[in-house]
């Protein structure tokens, strides 16, 4: 099953490679991994999207906790959470596609952030599956370029990951 794991770790050089090295050394899947500093400059927050059986996810959580630089680990799937990913897509917007691309962008609540004679650059946020759905819905031939940030996640309500 797909799991989103959030973790806080010391903002030290090499911390990221400890996590990514752990995943490759033990053969765990990484669908996406994002990392950035938090409001507390000494900490980074990482979101890892992975998949595996319950036993594997349990091992992943334990192994992450074992890393000396990792301060806290939370499996967001243990409770309610919100997931967001940002995608920027450049699509053809010549006469043939222009109207359709505008319409699809609206349907998916995206925003056109750059325009040229022949293309639109569109920003869309949502769960990873919503972004997948957008890609599925438009004509493949119209896609010029895509870039995705990977998912970030946060617990709902009182579920807080903080030191």
């Amino acid at each position: 099953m797909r799991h989103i794991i959030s973790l806080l770790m010391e903002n030290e050089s090499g911390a990221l490679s400890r996590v990514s090295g752990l995943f490759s050394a033990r053969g765990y899947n990484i669908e996406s991994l994002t990392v950035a500093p938090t409001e507390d400059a000494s900490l980074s927050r990482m979101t890892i999207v992975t998949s595996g059986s319950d036993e594997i996810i349990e091992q992943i959580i334990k192994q992450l906790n074992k890393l000396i630089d990792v301060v806290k680990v939370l499996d967001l799937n243990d409770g309610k959470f919100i997931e967001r990913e940002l995608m920027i897509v450049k699509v053809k917007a010549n006469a043939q596609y222009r109207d359709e691309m505008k319409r699809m962008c609206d349907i998916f609540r995206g925003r056109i952030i750059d325009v040229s004679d022949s293309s639109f650059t569109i920003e869309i946020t949502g769960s990873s599956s919503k972004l997948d759905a957008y890609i599925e819905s438009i004509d493949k031939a119209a896609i010029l370029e895509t870039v995705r940030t990977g998912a970030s996640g946060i617990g709902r309500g009182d579920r807080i990951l903080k030191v």
Partner: protein
Amino acid sequence: MNSNHISGAEIVIRCLHEEKVKFVFGYPGGAVLNIYDAVFQQNKFKHVLVRHEQAAVHAADAYSRSTGKVGVALVTSGPGATNAVTGIATAYMDSIPMVIISGQVPTYAIGQDAFQECDTVGITRPCVKHNFLVKDVKDIASTIKKAFYVASSGRPGPVLVDIPKDITAEKYEFNYPKSVHLRSYNPIIKGHSGQIKKALSLLLNAKKPMIYSGGGVVLGDASSQLTKFVRAIGAPITSTLMGLGGFPASDKQFLGMLGMHGTYEANMAMQECDVLLAVGARFDDRVIGNPEHFLSKPRTIIHIDIDPSSISKRVKIDIPIVGHVISVLTDLNDLLSKEKIKQNISLKHWFKEIDQWRSTNCLSFKNDKKLIKPQFVVQTLHQVTKGDAFITSDVGQHQMWAAQYYPFDKPRRWINSGGLGTMGVGLPYAMGTQLAHPDAMVACVTGEASIQMCIQELSTCKQFHLPIKIVNLNNRYMGMVRQWQEFFYGNRYAESYMEALPDFVKLAEAYGHVGMKIEKPSDVEPALKEAFSNKLKERLVFMDFITDQKENVFPMIPNGKGLSEMITAEDL
């Protein structure tokens, strides 16, 4: 500049003094010259100059295994660090507390492909508990303090501190922190009391209880608590290769080692028990074989371990208890002392069943008039040393024979590479052990292939007057490889014959030691007696025993098979 400022190199040395380090095993080079200059000007610890950095790390590792203290190694950048990697990985796999200090090119040269530069922190990351690159002289002391703390607490392991050369020349005041706190690292010591109660009641009510003890008991110095507990509940006990000596082998509750080359009785009891208590052990592939086969028999498993990730990794655990083995076993003993232990009648039946397995006498072997049986050499070694030696070993058949035929009654006496299975450890392990225990008997049981992997250390042994007794079980084969080729590859002995062997007697003599070649069974005991006699007390003796070439290690669980699927000597 402040007058009480000292160089980074001196700070390194002062830290080691603060940690009461007695020995540093190392090898100099450009990036650590400042540190070596500071080593030269102190006399609180002894620097042991090895002949290859791999041996420095192994020797420091054995110093730790045989004493429980943190071992320390010092190597230079680039090739010094890469040579150390095998030693570090070996220590990591067996959870040995060590601090390795490596030199690095100056901070301004990092990333420039400087002479003798390598990404030491990157290369060692997957085989250390943690590592650090020190980038500021101000951080040296606190980093080394952290390194010792992380290495020796929780589940122990090697920690590497990489120090660029310019940092060791810069000056700063020395201030060694009294304590460390890492918000991200808080090993759990105390076990959950509810789980401990449950575990005890399960064990007391079991029909066929079984204890399976591992290296964690030895590393955690918990053997007296374990022994007390096991004797009180009266259950049979087995041990992994790494746990040997954690419970006295001469006790009748002890069934011998389990696993791939474990005894018939230990493996059968492990398979047939109804309640299993695992203490500081990790159900690895060489121990339980095929996990599915193991789980095909229902039983309740209790697992005590300091590392949560060891629990339910290969085998699903019913009662996990995360905590330090000493703490948990002490709690179990305390609970037990309040309990009225009624005579558990089932135990009698259980031991009857076990005695039947025991009666197969799975470790028996036939001595030969002409050929020296390797098992006989180890047995005689046990006799001659009255079971009181420290035994180090390499990897192969000789290692298994040492484990099977030299019963250990005390912990920290059996020093070998269990997890990584590193050939070449035997001699440096004997060095670290002998330095830590100068008056003890230290024997290295090895094979003619393994011993050649760190043979250069005979020179170190000469320099430091280490009276190690090397027991070379010379079968002219990489015996363990040959055994697998015999069983599983149709006797095709691909590259496992050791051609062009040196004359080990002359080799030993060339290094200034005593060499002996033993070719007849009747000479085995006299040779060992002489080697351990007062006359040779101060000397390293290399005993080259020419053994039966085709002897195999039994019992054996073939790779991927289950505990009750052993091949014994009888089967072939």
